């Protein structure tokens, strides 16, 4: 993989645009820079109560007695709620407004535990009091008596006969089978079969902003909840849990201080809804860091086994994959995460004969759900480590093995879905390898390793969810632009992207665009900021709405100037004649003219993703996602073979983003996503022992500091072939996926043997060094 030349890019003619494609200052940047942005915990109301949640300290137990009477009697306590008070309300963990899943009976998480707790951290009771001190004191006064039940902490154990059952009839939460081609024939054709097993840990999102919200009942009796969330549409689930009509719950989303999937699930908002309804007063609930660790989802641990049939030249003839995922105590989004991992299990490679069996099982541990990549990163840790294992078994260069198998545009994934956009796997791979430059020499105590990972990751939701987004765009009489769009901004630039798109189409500078976002009552619903879907979905909705207005403005301007409509260009807040820029009308004058004549200056557009049916239940064949983003990371590391410490020396990441709406923001997504992936490989492990958390805070759970890794060399490629506006593909989740397997491959390159389990802590590495010496690979 040394001395690799970048593969020449296919010719692409992307138009040069005025706003799109420019690294402009994001519309949300200055407010955050000066500390003016009001996050969820920064908001207070008059007469506000403070809430706390009592949580289980047992992994599996029956609640024998739950007595809140002393807490209720405490002066200053406004309200104590237990499972009985919320009438067995369930936290609907299916996707809002969707019908994708057959819920297992009774497996939806109760808002408050009724008679059984299934993990440490499960909510049992809520308190609202005049002060935070009083709320904390009241929690201590709630008397709980448990009777411990047998518990299970490993998904494989959970599926064995006789295991403690979390939900009848068994602990299996979800299962998929993929059958493509003829596995046996493919294996028979192979010169060699390579088998490997890889394991990944629980991982914590560690967003900087602990979950928070404030709720109140307004003069119409509507419950308003101002909350840091990725999903304003949770108002529907909350309404169902409360037994109120959906139009009586209003979610006012805030700027979110990082979500990464964790704030895709309902967090504080459901508790706030019950408490404010009960008390009639505003209530605030802010998790401590420890509670944010204890109470929210984690990335799924996976065990993935690959059995791959290969020819001597590296071509894959058959791929058999087994996956076991840990769902934790409740399903939440596990069925979908498992589907993502399964549907992307064979990577960006053309493999004709595939058999995949995947399963997720419940255990008495913190529940697992969405985390940037949503199963894709775990799948990639499987297929990309396996590619290198194949290279080693065949004594081939890892890049050569990949070249022998790269899928091309028009090829199909393991579910038979055809990839119709550009596939620039090799373009990305050769660039990141070239970016590493000269190889750092070994020293007696430091072994240098290089690793490459090529991955693909979907963007846009599962197509049988029938995903939609809406946006309203309007031009004011002074030529400024307003967007109303319920897009939660979780820091990735979701709101800025749609502003830049509207600015481009309406020909105004970015600072002439204002967006109002994330209010379920007044901004058109745009769907979730998850699944790398907002640029694709809401970007297309804004594109559509702005284009409608643009057409009206152009028509009126053409009439005014006396040219044909096609000759009008909107640029620099003017409508100008394309071939004679001296003839123009200012946008504000044009807007006033339109307003006076009753020409609509606003438009509400809805964008519908392609709607499909589900997969064939027997073969798992069918289309799952709208499109994919392809990318690669290469790293160079040094392993200290005496201490087991790994130094990341160089890191390069390249993705085909279709079209970079804002290249500075794209660079931030790729650099930041890569960094999270590097942390996944080298630092991060959310440790549970017998269901109890051993890494309860940021003092024990290590996320990367500014010291840990060098700056990633980010190489942005633009094929212009995505299904987003201007040919954009999504990059939020794809940015993370290749980093960890690249590191894993570099460690294996340095040691000559593979450590099958993340993260590569010094202790694990040093044990591997001893093993490598015994095997004479080092």
């Amino acid at each position, binding site marked *: 993989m040394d001395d690799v030349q970048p593969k020449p890019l296919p010719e692409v003619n992307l138009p040069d645009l005025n706003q799109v494609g420019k690294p402009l200052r994001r519309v949300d940047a200055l407010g955050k820079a000066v500390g003016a942005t009001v996050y969820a915990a920064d908001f207070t109301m008059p007469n506000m109560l403070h809430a706390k949640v009592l949580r289980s300290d047992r992994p599996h137990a029956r609640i024998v007695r739950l007595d809140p009477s002393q807490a209720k009697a405490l002066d200053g306590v406004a309200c104590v709620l237990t499972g009985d008070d919320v009438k067995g309300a369930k936290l609907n963990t299916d996707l809002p407004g969707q019908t994708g899943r057959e819920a297992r009976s009774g497996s939806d998480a109760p808002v408050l535990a009724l008679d059984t707790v299934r993990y440490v951290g499960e909510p049992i009771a809520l308190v609202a009091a005049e002060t935070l001190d009083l709320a904390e004191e009241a929690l201590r006064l709630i008397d709980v008596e448990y009777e411990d039940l047998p518990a299970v902490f490993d998904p494989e154990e959970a599926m064995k006969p006789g295991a403690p059952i979390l939900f009848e009839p068994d602990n299996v939460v979800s299962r998929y089978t993929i059958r493509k081609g003829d596995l046996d024939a493919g294996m028979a054709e192979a010169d060699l079969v390579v088998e490997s097993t890889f394991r990944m840990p629980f991982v914590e999102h560690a967003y900087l902003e602990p979950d928070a919200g404030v709720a109140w009942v307004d003069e119409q009796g509507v419950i308003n909840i101002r909350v840091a969330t990725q999903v304003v549409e949770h108002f529907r689930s909350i309404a169902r849990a409360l037994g109120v009509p959906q139009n009586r719950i209003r979610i006012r989303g805030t*700027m979110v201080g990082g979500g990464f999937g964790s704030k895709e699930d309902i967090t504080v908002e459901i508790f706030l809804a019950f408490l404010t309804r009960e008390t009639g007063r505003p209530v605030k609930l802010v998790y401590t860091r420890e509670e944010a660790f204890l109470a929210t989802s984690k990335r799924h641990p996976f065990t993935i086994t690959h059995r791959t049939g290969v020819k001597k030249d590296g071509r894959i003839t058959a791929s058999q994959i087994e996956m076991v995922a840990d769902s934790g105590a409740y399903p939440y989004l596990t069925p979908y995460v498992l589907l993502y991992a399964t549907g992307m299990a064979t990577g960006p490679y053309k493999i004709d004969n595939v058999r995949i069996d995947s399963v997720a099982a419940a255990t008495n541990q913190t529940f697992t759900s969405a985390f940037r990549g949503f199963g894709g990163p775990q799948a990639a840790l499987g297929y990309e480590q396996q590619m290198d294992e194949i290279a080693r078994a065949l004594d081939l260069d890892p890049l050569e093995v990949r070249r022998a198998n790269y899928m091309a545009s028009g090829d199909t994934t393991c579910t038979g879905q055809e990839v119709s956009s550009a596939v620039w796997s090799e373009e990305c791979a050769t660039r990141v390898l070239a970016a590493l430059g000269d190889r750092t020499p070994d020293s007696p105590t430091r072994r240098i390793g290089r690793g490459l990972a090529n991955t693909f990751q979907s963007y846009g939701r599962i197509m049988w969810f029938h995903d939609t987004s809406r946006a309203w765009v309007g031009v004011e009489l002074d030529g400024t632009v307003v967007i109303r769009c319920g897009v939660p901004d979780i820091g990735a630039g979701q709101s800025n992207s749609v502003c830049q798109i509207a600015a481009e189409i309406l020909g105004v500078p970015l600072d002439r665009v204002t967006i109002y976002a994330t209010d379920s009552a007044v901004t058109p619903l745009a769907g979730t900021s998850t699944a790398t879907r907002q640029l694709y979905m809401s970007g297309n909705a804004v594109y559509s709405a702005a284009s409608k207005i643009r057409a009206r403005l152009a028509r009126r301007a053409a009439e005014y100037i006396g040219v044909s409509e096609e000759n009008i260009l909107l640029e620099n807040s003017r409508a100008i004649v394309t071939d004679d820029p001296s003839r123009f009308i200012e946008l504000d004058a044009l807007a006033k003219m339109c307003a006076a004549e009753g020409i609509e200056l606003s438009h509400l557009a809805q964008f519908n993703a392609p709607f499909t049916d589900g997969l064939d239940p027997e073969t798992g064949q069918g289309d799952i996602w709208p499109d994919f983003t392809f990318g690669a990371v290469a790293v160079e590391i040094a392993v200290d073979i005496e201490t087991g410490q790994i130094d990341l020396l160089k890191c390069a990441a390249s993705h085909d983003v279709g079209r970079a709406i804002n290249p500075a923001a794209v660079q931030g997504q790729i650099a930041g996503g890569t960094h999270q992936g590097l942390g996944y490989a080298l630092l991060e492990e959310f440790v549970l022992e017998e269901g109890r958390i051993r890494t309860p805070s940021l003092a024990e759970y290590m996320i990367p500091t500014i010291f840990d890794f060098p700056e990633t060399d980010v190489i942005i490629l633009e094929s212009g072939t995505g299904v987003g506006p201007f040919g954009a593909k999504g990059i939020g989740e794809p940015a993370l996926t290749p980093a960890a397997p690249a590191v894993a491959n570099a460690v294996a390159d340095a040691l000559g043997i593979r450590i099958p389990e993340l993260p590569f802590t010094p202790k694990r590495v040093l044990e591997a060094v001893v093993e490598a010496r015994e095997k004479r690979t080092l």
Partner: protein
Amino acid sequence: MTERRPIRLIVNGRAHEVSLPPNTTLLTALRDLGCTDAKNGCEQGECGACAVLLDGEPMNSCMILAWQADGARITTNAGLGTLERPHPIQEAFADAGAIQCGFCTSGMVIATKALLDRNPDPTEAEIRDALSGNLCRCTGYGQIAAAVHLAAERLRNLPSWSASSASEDGQEPAFKKRVLASDDVTGEGGRS
């Protein structure tokens, strides 16, 4: 034994007389005064989101009792600049793409201010050291380091914003409580 007591906090150049119980952290006191730009990210000194300047030195306000800051000059990020008149450091963060979710930003800006006040032209290593207590989960830090370089460059080229004048936030030069003395060695290690 834990009754409230009036203390004086000089926050962003403005004196506040507040009555607080002794177990109130400076972070809580500041946020109750409306300085919600100081963020609560962990309450144990691990994340740096609550960083403020206390008599010119950057510190975690979650680890200081408000009473311990009685009479001290405190600067939060919002005290450095506003939307209408942002501080060059704040502008550099916005311009360099150093901001994603923004929750770490106030602490980052404060740590940067402290660095540039004493070192107007820091190296990459000095920047990393200065920001070693500020966690960011979004950016990967590269654009943050670039923002610090950009801010340093702009401040060096803008005399009115030069770090030594540092008067825009009502900040006195950092008060040094230390007294150095040396009775058997002279001229060694003396620092006023």
